[in-house]
Each structure stands twice: as structure tokens, then as C-alpha cells.
């Protein structure tokens, strides 16, 4: 059935457009049809044929369905650029929507919905109304989707004309395909509306479950996805729903299977009977396993989802680890994901087999995969205490192969194993030292140096080993320098002989005078002062026992996991990120009305304006396994700084205390008044201890404002606080000053904070993980959100001219836009005052139609500026915020901040 359309591409001689124009107006039908095909061919290869608009539209009135479709296609592409001429097509559209042939009726509404021109949209309403009630299901199913299209262009119109009600009626349609499309349309409309539009009652539920048996595979996916939002009233209802959904697990379409799994998992949360749950787990395992025989791309999605599922329900696949063993021909992205799951499923029972596999992978050719396999062995050692020894012997075998990157990776994981099982496996240090000179990667070097320093007393020639590194000290990367510094100090404290004494001089000199790395210098000064003031104290600090690290393979935060599980099969579950971190709804460019010159002077483009195309979303989800959210609830096996220095707050506090009096005496601000702080650790989780906290800016300084409430029966004392690595390197600048809290007492305190201490890698995130301990209770971990506006510095004001210049100098890709439909600015003055109070400086204001446009500037530390444009109608809901900044990856954080500020 091969065609010969390629001939239409081949007319590229000069004068093509006039020639086409002539042919389009030919009196012969066939010639006109050929001409339209040539036009479409030209359009396909990206030529601009918009100038033929009138001539093409003249061919629209035809009996020939093929020709009609081509003209419609042309219209979809060019109507936006010729809005005034597009109106010419309206008559034919309206006529076609009443054609006796349902194919043509459907085609007409479908196409009209795709033309994003206001003038056309007005005329769409009547045909759409008719088509929603058409006799033919094919027309109705098309009309159902068209309502969603119209809502996307003009939501008000849809509500005013009662299309939502008609759409809801279609849920009871007797045709399953119509029902499915109506569900898809309603679900999308609901997503973009704050009002409850599409609420699933138990009545709709049963209707939709019935339609499930009859509609196409794609329709089944729409319905299952929509229904997974439904919250069953009780366990019995949940069981009933599950019973009707389980047959879908047998469907050949894997999207149907995954959506069914999602729905079953959701309902399982409510089911109390352990028998039922066990039975369901048993039922879900085989279909999940079978997904691994699908196409590799589908396997990838399935594996990312299985990764989530086993975190919540490890039993489902506990006995299926073998199906995740990598096949020779699996694409690398499938192998990587399989490895992750193997680690999660590894147990004392299967570890021998798993290790054999990892060992096999460690000799493959793909370097990244090999490294991951070696790391996997280490992670299993940390996870399974009883298997640790076997894991280590495999690692030693691998080190003996002497493949450079395998050795380095092995040393990195062995360091973590030492931290997990202190004083257990040091006998292997000798073997490690043999590979010393092959190390060339910073992380491996740093790890090895850490090991030498930590066990200096057991390594006879520790001083020689370290000394060999010292020669190249100035050239080493910072990570290695920091480790060398710490290791040398440890060595000196453990063996205070002449050799180490000289070494420490050299190192301290190098690390203070010779370097311009502030982190290194600071750390060196701390050691220096400690050693010179009180060597015994130095010993207590530097050689203090380190907290034991633990398994991080079930790493996702439970609430995040909940959210991701509710999003099974979707992109969110593939990225392991909540949808709002990457969903970017941009309004497709409708025609721009008037002078939008200031401040973005880009041309009105057809497809989209670069401003709109810019990413309003968050950190690009790196779809590899390094999920930033997982980062750490524990003091993770921090590869960069395992030395105890930086994270111990007391020490840092004391030191700064020696230098100046930056510490804010706790009592100065420690009153229980002030605005209430958000509760981060509720008393129910904190065994009676409630902690509320928020970052705040005061007198140009950043503070962590904390309130402790002791609702327990005992007095709590010895409070300490620690912050995990975060995007801004926020850390405590002093120690936490909280007096012993008697039962019932509460205390408020301000903790001074510093920036850029222990920065986490990866895209910026607002996550701030906090650990608080006291002498009576276990360590409490909670998450806080960093609101960017606390960082806004008071030197962020920009002159009008420099604002304009900066705006122009930044590329359009640095502009990010976000709308806040729910926010209303009721008074400009009040808002400006409030923003000014947080160092968001007002620059200019202008009127644009009935909208007010405000310009602001702000700056965060390290001199990163934000140029801000706010557009709103005073007194009406809806604020549009566009920003330009050299660091657009900060945009999501900025929007969070501005949303809070505007809502306040």
C-alpha cells in the first residue's frame, strides 16, 4: 500500500509560491488537490506558506474528504498567524459541523478546537453544543475532548455556556468510548481549576467501573487514572473496588496494568484485613514481573515504578529478585534501574546469588554500570550486617583485578563500610594500601586518606603514606586537601612524634597561608587554635566517636513516597519527584495584542514566544537514580566530609565565639511571643516534644527561629541541632541555646545561621533537613522548607537603567514565567511595602490595558540578581510573575517565595 507522495516535495524551483497560487485557483479539482498537497509538503519541510492562506481556504468547501482534511491541517498550522483571515473558514466549519456524514461533523469540531484564535472560538460554541448531543458516538467522543480544548483557551466561556454540565452528562453516556473521553476531559479541567468540578461519587464510580469493561485500552487508562483519586469510604468499599479492578491486571496493554496497580495500591491503604492484603500482593507480583518482558522503554518506566512499590510493599517482589538480574542485551538504562531494585530486594537469604551477579557486572565494559555495581556491593554490606564480610571479600577480589576505576570505587565504598562497622574489618587496610598509587580520582583519594587518618594507629607507616600525598598538597582538589588536613591532625594526635609534628606544620601552613579556599582555611584555623589551646580538647573533638551510618536504600521520605505512589505510571513516578516540580503549564501563545515592548522586546512568534517557552519548572529531573529527595535523613555516608569537624555545631560555635561575639545570646530574643511558627515536629511524633521553626531575616542576618514545647512527662535538656547538606549550605553559626525544659515549658530561640557551609550537589531544592537531639530522647529528624526571600540582601536595589540593561543582556532562555491564578493583590501600596520589607525593591510601574505591571529587583548572596515583573489587575485574582536571572534553576524556589509573600 505504498504511496508516492514524495513527488510533492520536489518542486523547489523559484517562483514556487505564485505557481502554487495559480494551481490552487485552478478550475480542475485534481489540480487543486495536488496543489494543496504540495502546500502541505512545503509546510512539512518547514517552508512558510502562510501567504497562500486565502487560496487554500478557498479549497475548503469540497466533497473530497482527503482534501478537506489537508485544508484543515493547513488551518491548524497557520490560523494563528493570520487571525483575521481565519474567520473566512468559520462558515465552512459551521456548515461541516452539520454535515450528514459523522466523520465530517467530528472533523469540523475537532479542528475548530485546535485553532487557538479568539474569533474562531466564539463560533465554536454552537457547533460544540450540538455535537455534544449528536446521535453518533464518534462525534460525541470528539466533542467531549473538544470541551477540554476550549477550556484551555477560554475557561470562562466553557463555564458560562454550561459545557461542564453537558460534559458531566456524558459520563452516563451509553457508549464506553464517549464516557472515557469525557472522563479524560473532566480530569484535565479539574487539574487546572481550583473549584471542585469533577467529583467522583460512589454513583459515578460504579458507572465508570462498568464502562471499564467495554471501552478501548486507552479509555481504560483514562478511567483508571481518574478513579485512582477516589477515596473509598471504608475497607469494605475499597475491597469491592479492588475486586472489580483486578481483572485489568490481565490486560495485554501494560499501561492498563500499571494504572490498575496504582488503583489497587491506593485502595489497599484502607484495607485492614491482612489476608486480603497478602492475597492482593500475591496477585500483583506476576503482572509486575511480566512488565519486564515488554519493550525496553516500557521496562524502564516499570522499573522506576517497581522501585517505588517495593519501598512501600517489599513483600510483593521479595521472592522475585532473579527477574531483575541483568541480561546481556538490556540497554544500559534498564541495567542501571535493575541494579537499584536488586539492592532493595537483597536479603540474607539471597545475598550470595546477588553478590555473584554484582561481581559479574563489575567486569562488564560500561564504566558507569561497573561503578554502580561496585557501589551496590558496598550498599549491600551496609544494609545486611550478616553479609558484610562476604561483600568485603568480593570487593577485595575486585581490587585484585587492578582495573583502575574498580579499585577506586571499591575504596570509596569500603570507607562507608568502615563507618558502618567501626573496628571490625580493619584487617583489610593493608590490601587497600597496596593500591594507593593508582588512585587518581578525588573521591577515591579522599576516602583512602580518611581511612589512613582514622586508623593511623594501626598502620605502621601511616606517616609515610600521608607524606607521599603532602608534596602535591597545593595541586590537590579541595576535597582531598580537606581530608589530608584532617587526616594529618588525626595522625598527630594519635602519634605525637616528630615526623607528624613536622607534617602538621607543613599542612597547616599550606592550608592557611598558601590557599585561597575559605573552607580549607577555616578548618585549618580551627585545628590550629584547638591544638595550640588545648590538645586534650582537640583529641576529644577530632577523635570523637562518629555516628554510625546506616542503610540508605529505602530512602524516600514517606510522605513523598505516598505522593509518588498516587502517581504511578506517570512521569512523576519516573522522575521520583512530585508533579509540581516539573509541570510547566504555559499558555500557548494566543495573539499578542499590543505593545509588549517593555521590557522584553522579542518578536511575536507563531509557535510560542521564547518568554513563554522558558522553563517555569523546577530542577530538571535527572532521571538517573541520584534522587535528590533521597539525599539523607541520616547523616549520610557523607563522602566529602566524613571528618567530624564541620558538622559538630558546638565546636563551630565556640570557635566563632572566640573570634567575635557573633553569637546571639539566646535569652535576648527568647520570648514566647511573636507570630506563631509552623509546627515541624508535632508532639505526637516527638514523644511529647513539639518543635516549630522557620527561617527569618533580622537586621540583615539569617536566623532560624525555633520554638520548643515540652509536652512530655520528663525534663528535656542538652538540646543540639544539626542541618543536613542543603542547596544553600545553610548551617548553624552558633550552638543552640535552650535551657533544660521542664514538662509543660516552652522556649523560643533564635539560632544564627550561615550560608555556603555544606552545600549539597544537584539542582537547587528548598528542602532543609534538620536533626535535633537532646539527652533524653532519640534524635528527631524533620524537614523544613527554605523560603528564598530570607536570603534577599539589602543591596539588591537596581537603578532603572541598569535594570533595563541587565534584562536585555540576559538571554530569553533565562526568563521564567509562572501564574498564580488564586492570588489577589488588593492594594498596591501595601504589597509594595511588604515586598520592600523583604528586600524586594520596587523599580517601576506601568499600565498595560487594565493591568498593572510592576518591576522589582532582588539579590541573593553570591550576587545572584533577580529581575521581576509582576502583572495583575488590582483587586482581581490572578498574578503573573515573570523573572529573569542568570540562575534560572532558582526560579521554582523564587516562585515559592513570591507566592508566600503575596499571600501574606
Amino acid at each position, binding site marked *: 500500500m505504498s504511496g508516492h507522495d514524495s513527488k510533492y516535495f520536489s518542486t523547489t524551483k523559484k517562483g514556487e509560491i505564485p505557481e502554487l497560487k495559480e494551481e490552487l485557483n485552478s478550475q480542475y479539482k485534481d489540480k487543486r488537490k495536488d496543489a494543496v498537497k504540495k502546500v502541505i509538503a512545503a509546510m512539512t519541510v518547514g517552508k512558510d506558506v502562510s501567504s497562500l492562506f486565502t487560496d487554500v481556504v478557498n479549497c475548503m468547501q469540497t466533497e473530497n474528504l482527503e482534501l478537506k482534511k489537508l485544508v484543515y491541517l493547513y488551518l491548524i498550522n497557520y490560523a494563528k498567524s493570520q487571525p483575521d483571515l481565519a474567520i473566512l473558514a468559520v462558515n465552512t466549519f459551521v456548515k461541516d459541523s452539520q454535515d450528514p456524514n459523522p466523520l465530517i461533523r467530528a472533523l469540523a469540531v475537532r479542528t475548530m478546537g*485546535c485553532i487557538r484564535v479568539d474569533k474562531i472560538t466564539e463560533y465554536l460554541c454552537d457547533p460544540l453544543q450540538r455535537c455534544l448531543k449528536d446521535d453518533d458516538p464518534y462525534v460525541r467522543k470528539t466533542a467531549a475532548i473538544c470541551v477540554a480544548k476550549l477550556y484551555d483557551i477560554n475557561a470562562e466561556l466553557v463555564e458560562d455556556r454550561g459545557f461542564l454540565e453537558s460534559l458531566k452528562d456524558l459520563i452516563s453516556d451509553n457508549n464506553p468510548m464517549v464516557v472515557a473521553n469525557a472522563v479524560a476531559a473532566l480530569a484535565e479541567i479539574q487539574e487546572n481549576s481550583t473549584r471542585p468540578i469533577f467529583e467522583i461519587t460512589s454513583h459515578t464510580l460504579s458507572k465508570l467501573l462498568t464502562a471499564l469493561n467495554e471501552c478501548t485500552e486507552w479509555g481504560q487508562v483514562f478511567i483508571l487514572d481518574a478513579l485512582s483519586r477516589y477515596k473509598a469510604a471504608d475497607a469494605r468499599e475499597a475491597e469491592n473496588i479492588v475486586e472489580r479492578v483486578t481483572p485489568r491486571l490481565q490486560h495485554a496493554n*501494560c499501561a492498563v496494568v500499571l494504572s490498575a496497580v496504582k488503583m489497587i495500591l491506593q485502595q489497599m491503604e484502607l484495607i485492614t484485613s491482612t489476608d486480603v492484603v497478602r492475597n492482593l500482593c500475591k496477585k500483583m507480583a506476576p503482572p509486575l514481573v511480566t512488565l519486564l518482558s515488554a519493550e525496553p522503554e516500557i521496562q524502564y518506566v516499570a522499573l522506576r515504578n517497581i522501585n517505588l512499590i517495593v519501598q512501600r510493599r517489599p513483600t510483593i517482589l521479595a521472592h522475585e529478585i532473579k527477574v531483575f538480574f541483568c541480561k546481556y542485551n538490556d540497554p544500559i538504562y534498564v541495567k542501571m534501574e535493575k541494579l537499584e531494585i536488586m539492592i532493595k530486594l537483597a536479603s540474607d537469604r539471597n545475598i550470595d546469588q546477588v553478590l555473584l551477579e554484582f561481581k559479574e557486572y563489575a567486569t562488564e565494559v560500561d564504566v558507569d554500570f561497573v561503578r554502580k555495581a561496585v557501589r551496590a556491593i558496598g550498599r549491600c554490606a551496609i544494609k545486611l550486617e550478616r553479609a558484610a564480610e562476604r561483600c568485603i571479600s568480593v570487593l577485595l577480589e575486585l581490587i585484585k583485578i587492578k*582495573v583502575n576505576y574498580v579499585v577506586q570505587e571499591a575504596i570509596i565504598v569500603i570507607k562507608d563500610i568502615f563507618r558502618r562497622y567501626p573496628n571490625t574489618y580493619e584487617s583489610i587496610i593493608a590490601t587497600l594500601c597496596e593500591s594507593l598509587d593508582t588512585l587518581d580520582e578525588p573521591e577515591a583519594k579522599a576516602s583512602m586518606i580518611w581511612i589512613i587518618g582514622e586508623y593511623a594507629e594501626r598502620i605502621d607507616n601511616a606517616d609515610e603514606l600521608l607524606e607521599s600525598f603532602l608534596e602535591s598538597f597545593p595541586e590537590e582538589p579541595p576535597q582531598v586537601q580537606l581530608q589530608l588536613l584532617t587526616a594529618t591532625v588525626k595522625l598527630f594526635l594519635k602519634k605525637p612524634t616528630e615526623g607528624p609534628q613536622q607534617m602538621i606544620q607543613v599542612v597547616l601552613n599550606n592550608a592557611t597561608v598558601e590557599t585561597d579556599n575559605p573552607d580549607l582555611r577555616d578548618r585549618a584555623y580551627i585545628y590550629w587554635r584547638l591544638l595550640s589551646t588545648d590538645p586534650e580538647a582537640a583529641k576529644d573533638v577530632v577523635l570523637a566517636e562518629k555516628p554510625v551510618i546506616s542503610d540508605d536504600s529505602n530512602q524516600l521520605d514517606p510522605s513523598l513516597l505516598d505522593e509518588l505512589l498516587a502517581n504511578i505510571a506517570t512521569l512523576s513516578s519516573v522522575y521520583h519527584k512530585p508533579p509540581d516540580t516539573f509541570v510547566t503549564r504555559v499558555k500557548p501563545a494566543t495573539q499578542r495584542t499590543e505593545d509588549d515592548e517593555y521590557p522584553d522586546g522579542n518578536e511575536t512568534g507563531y509557535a510560542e514566544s521564547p518568554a513563554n517557552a522558558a522553563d517555569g519548572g523546577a530542577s530538571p529531573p535527572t532521571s538517573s537514580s541520584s534522587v535528590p529527595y533521597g539525599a539523607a535523613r541520616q547523616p549520610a555516608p557523607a563522602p566529602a566530609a566524613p571528618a567530624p569537624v564541620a558538622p559538630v555545631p558546638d565546636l563551630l560555635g565556640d570557635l566563632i565565639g572566640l573570634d567575635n561575639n557573633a553569637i546571639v545570646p539566646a535569652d535576648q530574643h527568647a520570648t514566647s511571643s511573636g507570630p506563631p511558627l509552623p509546627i515541624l515536629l508535632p508532639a505526637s511524633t516527638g514523644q511529647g516534644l513539639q518543635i516549630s521553626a522557620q527561617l527569618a531575616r533580622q537586621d540583615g542576618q539569617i536566623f532560624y527561629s525555633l520554638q520548643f514545647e515540652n509536652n512530655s512527662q520528663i525534663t528535656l535538656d542538652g538540646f543540639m541541632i544539626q542541618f543536613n547538606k542543603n542547596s544553600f549550605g545553610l548551617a548553624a553559626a552558633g550552638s543552640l541555646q535552650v535551657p533544660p525544659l521542664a514538662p509543660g515549658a516552652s522556649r523560643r530561640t533564635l539560632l544564627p545561621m550561615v550560608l555556603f557551609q555544606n552545600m549539597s550537589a544537584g539542582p537547587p531544592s528548598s528542602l532543609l533537613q534538620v536533626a535535633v537531639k537532646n539527652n533524653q530522647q532519640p534524635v528527631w529528624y524533620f524537614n523544613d522548607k527554605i523560603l528564598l526571600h530570607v536570603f534577599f540582601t539589602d543591596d539588591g536595589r537596581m537603578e532603572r537603567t541598569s535594570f533595563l540593561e541587565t534584562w536585555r543582556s540576559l538571554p530569553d532562555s533565562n526568563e521564567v514565567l509562572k501564574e498564580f491564578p488564586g492570588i489577589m493583590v488588593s492594594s498596591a501600596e501595601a504589597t509594595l511595602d511588604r515586598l520592600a520589607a523583604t528586600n524586594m525593591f520596587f523599580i517601576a510601574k506601568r499600565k498595560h490595558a487594565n493591568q498593572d505591571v510592576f518591576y522589582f529587583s532582588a539579590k541573593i548572596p553570591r550576587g545572584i540578581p533577580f529581575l521581576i515583573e509582576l502583572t495583575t489587575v488590582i483587586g482581581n485574582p490572578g498574578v503573573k510573575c515573570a523573572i529573569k536571572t542568570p540562575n534560572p534553576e532558582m526560579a521554582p524556589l523564587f516562585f515559592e517565595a513570591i507566592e508566600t509573600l503575596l499571600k501574606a
Partner: protein
Amino acid sequence: MAGAASALFLLDIKGRVLVWRDYRGDVSATQAERFFTKLIEKEGDPQSQDPVVYDNGVTYMFIQHSNVYLMTATRQNCNAASLLFFLHRVVDVFKHYFEELEEESLRDNFVVVYELLDEIMDFGYPQYTEAKILSEFIKTDAYRMEVTQRPPMAVTNAVSWRSEGINYKKNEVFLDVVESVNILVNSNGQIIRSDVVGALKMRTYLSGMPECKLGLNDRVLLEAQGRATKGKAIDLEDIKFHQCVRLARFENDRTISFIPPDGSFDLMTYRLSTQVKPLIWVEAQVEKHSRSRVEIMVKARSQFKERSTATNVEIAVPVPADASSPNVRTSMGSAAYAPESDALMWKIRSFPGGKEYMLRAEFTLPSITDEEATPERKAPIRVKFEIPYFTVSGIQVRYLKIIEKSGYQALPWVRYITMAGEYELRLI
């Protein structure tokens, strides 16, 4: 949770847009093309790239088929499984239309391609992908007739895969039971994975709207019916059905009932993870002599009953990449060195059960090697074969009843075959 594709792109091997359809107007072709060409350039081999990639607010998902990439773009949190699976279905539709999906066939049929893109997806939501029914109302030039008066009922019917009014003089059904054996043996000779994936492939040439009912020796069903199983029944672990099978009915009483599509389709697939004895066992011994030559000895043994015979057996034995001057002898079949895949391909046309064959090969090796060389990729021995008239699982079609209101008699033909799937032995 709702979400749909913004656009669907068909790109050539270099990542340039051949044909695209814009469904939502929020991702432009230039933007997508720029992203994708960059991706291909950067990675060199897109096979190694995650099939779901985020770039500048847009998520791209793609698959490759011959020299064409199919890609969707979206700004929403759409159903990734559904869209990727949809892309594979689109390949099937195009293949049905143009026999082969490649750059040339897309160009040659761009008018139909546009028509199809308009019909299979609306506003980014997958709509309809039954190629056979689509071709009833979207036709290529050669078959185009006057205006179709309405879409086929099937498009919106509950039976969306079959049109009414089909007529055959002779009503026949062909049912092929095909089982693929997947096996993974580790370097200790232990079987670490073994499963069987079976498929019931049907070709139907039936008139009207036939109601079919298929009976298998399914243990659950037979036991429920209280029949003696006499060891003949089998346990099917995970069964997947074509959308024509009534799933709720199967859930209730394990009856497989359906109205089949016309022509060929996979009625069901199933999986068994019971350990099976490897049908063909291969052992290899490699001896390296003083860095100058390597000797390989391979033994292949068939471990099934003598009355069956494996055909088209092909054993791929990996050899070092720098080996040369092969010298091969076999006790059966022929062997050829395939340097492009660093393997020795041993082909045996007919391999009866209970037999053992040998192969000896010698290669010369260069006397010097690169010190820094990364270790040799350790490929497994891979085996391909087919064994007709035999299934590993012992599955049997007990009956296939076909009832149509006109009351014709239809003839069902059943065949059984077992073949190697992912059959890997890491023994070298």
C-alpha cells in the same frame, strides 16, 4: 494526574523532524528538534539514553524503529507508560499501512500519515490504534474510493477491534502455541533464571461476529470443574489477554471467551517460572597458550526426548576481540567466525534429542597487548533453536469452540513450537 502529549514527532536518524503533529501548541518543532539533535550528538548512541528525558520544562519520550524516531513531548505529568506504549502501537499502525516504517515510507505517504496522526490521538490523548479498522476509513491513494459515509461502527463500539459484515467462503482459525525459553546460567553452571514465555498466536478467517471459547488444560479451571487432572494440567502464572477477551468473565470462572479481531493477533501470553532443564546445554573450555593462540572446545548436548528434534540451532561462542586466523572443526553442522560480533557462529540445522556434538576452534592472538586496556567484555554463550511439535509447559488446547449466528462450521488448526528466547550461558 491528568496529562496528555503536546505533540508527536517523527524524526529521522539525525533527529530532524520529518512529520509532526502539534496537539496543544505549547511545544514547538524547533524546540524539540534542537533538544533531540543535541541529545543524539551528545550521547552518540541514543540506545544508551534514558527514554524519558526532561529538558527546559518539557518531557520528551521516544522510541526508535529502523531509521525513524517516534517522540512525544509534554509539559504535564502525563501517563508515561501509556504514551510509550502508544508509540509502539503507532509503529504497528504504520507498519500495517506501509509494510515498513522508515523515513522513505513516511515521506511517500505523508498525506496518510497526517490523517492517521489526526485520528489516533486527539489533544494529546491516545484515541484509536486498531490498524485494521483504521484502514477501513483512512485509505492510501491506491485504495481510496469515494467519500466514506461514516466511521466504522467498530471505532466507538464495545467491540472496537472488529467490523461487522466480514465474510469468508471457508471459515478457518489457525492457532499457534509458541513458547520461548529464557535461561540464564552463571559461571558456576548454576541456572539462576529460567522461565518460559508463551504466546497463543491466532489467525482468524471467520465470517460475521463469531463467539469463540477456548479451553486449555488449566489446572485451576479443571480443578474447579472437579475433573481428574492426571498430571496433565498446568499452572499458568501470569496470563495477559488481548483486549478482545472478557477479563471479568475469566476472573469469575476462568473461561476464555472472546469475539476475535479479523486476521492475526496474539490472543494471550503467559509466563511460567518453573525451573526447566535447559533444552540445549553448552559447555566451553578455553585455553590460552602463551599469549599467542587460544583454543576453544565446545560441547553441545540436547536434553529433550529423542522423538523431538531441534531445528535451526545456532550457538554463538564469544571469542577475544583481537583473535584472528580461525581454524575450526565440528562434529556436526558448520561454524563460521563472525568478527563483527566477536563470536564464532556454530549452526546445526537438525539436532535430535539426546545427542551431543563437539566443536574445536583455534585462533591466533597478537603477542602484545595494551597495558591500559579495559577488560574484555565478557559476553555469554547465546543459543537459538526451534523445536516444533513440542511445548515445555505441556500446555494443550482442549477445544476452540466457534459459534456464529449463521451457524457455519469452522475449522481450527493448532500447532505447537518451542524456541529459545534470551538463552544465555555465562560459561566462558
